[in-house]
């Protein structure tokens, strides 16, 4: 089950970076098709997640994440690995 605090923070970061209302940021939403993120905004999202959670994300793995729900799962895993 997703860590609610991480999940909420991921959604808030996405909303802020992509200038969206929070209710548009659903777990099933695709960053490119549904939320309109271009390649540069995707890179900015990765940087924003790293800043928010004080983690380092492998860019090759990070760019494979396509949905908000995927980002939540990915960040939960990386956070657990890097912060225990």
């Amino acid at each position, binding site marked *: 089950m997703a860590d609610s605090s991480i999940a909420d923070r991921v959604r808030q970061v996405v909303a802020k970076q992509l200038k969206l209302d929070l209710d548009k940021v659903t777990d099933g939403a695709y960053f490119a098709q549904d939320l309109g993120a271009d390649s540069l905004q995707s890179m900015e999202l990765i*940087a924003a997640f790293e800043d928010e959670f004080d983690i380092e994300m492998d860019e090759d793995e990070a760019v494979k994440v396509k949905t908000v729900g995927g980002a939540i799962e990915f960040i939960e895993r990386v956070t657990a690995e890097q912060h225990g």
Partner: protein
Amino acid sequence: MRICIFEDDKADNLYPLSLLRPTFELRCGAISLRERILRGYPFARDACYFVRDYLAPVYRRAAGKPVNDPAWLKRDGLLLVNGRMLALGDWPAAQGGDEIGMRGDDVAYARLSAATVAALDAADPLALIEQARSKVKTVNAPQTLISYPWALIEHNNECIAADFGALPHKGVHGELAQMSVIYGDKEMAYVAPGAQVHPLVVLDTHAGPVIIDEGAKVFPHTRIEGPSYIGRGAHIVGGKIREGCSIGPMCRVGGEVEESIIHGYSNKYHDGFLGHAYVGEWVNLGALTTNSDLKNDYGNVEVYVRGELVNSGSTKVGCFIGDHTKTSIGTLFNTGTVVGVGCIILGGSEILPKHVPSFAWYYNGHIAKGGGFDAFTDTARTAMGRRGVTLTDEDIELLRTARKMTKAERSEAIRKARR
């Protein structure tokens, strides 16, 4: 005689240009340092190259000669030449007694007899030379060794002039359209067979020769000042190619270029100034990309080398751009900027930092992570395919290795950018 051209421990000084190729494949004038060395030994019966290990798989395919082959070294007497040598008529003698030529602390060359080689046992040229030191006389070598990227620019004029002198033919053997002109001594131009110089082109030979190589096309409204070299299949699409330019094969170049080397297969199609710069392969410079090559206080330009700023000793130094880097429209490079391999530069009104690590992106005023290796290779495959070149598995492995090698400096630069 047999000749071995080797890299030494200063190959990294020529980063980012040397990250994906041996130092001796860098261009100065119309040809590479390797071709310039070999020009002095037309009767060499065999050649072998020693390069950094990670380069060997790709280079072995390109070289068509033994690469990193210790058995070859031991087979007979040989002349070993440092691949950073800029040989301009002062080649080390192929014949004579055993001798090690030193340029400062660097080995410039070593001539070793079969008997000497047989008494030694080393797996690479520098180790072989080190073993020979106690038995062989050492002399001061007069030849120039290229120690930094800007040295290639500094010597480009004289190399082009020498390369013109070495041509078997001069004059127009291709197409020089009516209403184009060789302004100056017509014997100081060479338009190769298959080359086209369109109307309204000026080839100015007052200050040096102009070479238009096979299959090159020079489009209208272009002025090329000598000494300059336009490589095989290159297109010059209008603008000013000022003195001291070497435009490598298959490039597409326009705008204003001065005393610069574009290695090959790169595009600077649009307006924008490139001066005292060396641009690698598969680079695309967006419209209006411009570099500074002179500080406002006319002071010497400092350049990042191995992570430290080095005083170039020169007031005119532009930028050094690694292979596969792309810049956006309007990118502005500071004087003496180093941009690594595989970067995406989204410049704007601000001047970029003086060093962007390989495989990094630059946007919104800071250095950041790239878009992943798969996306990078997809783009490289597309860019190369447009020129009929295939990105091979060996190429991909080389790029992957280069990306790993540069990870620490990239991560550090990203961390600094976020503080």
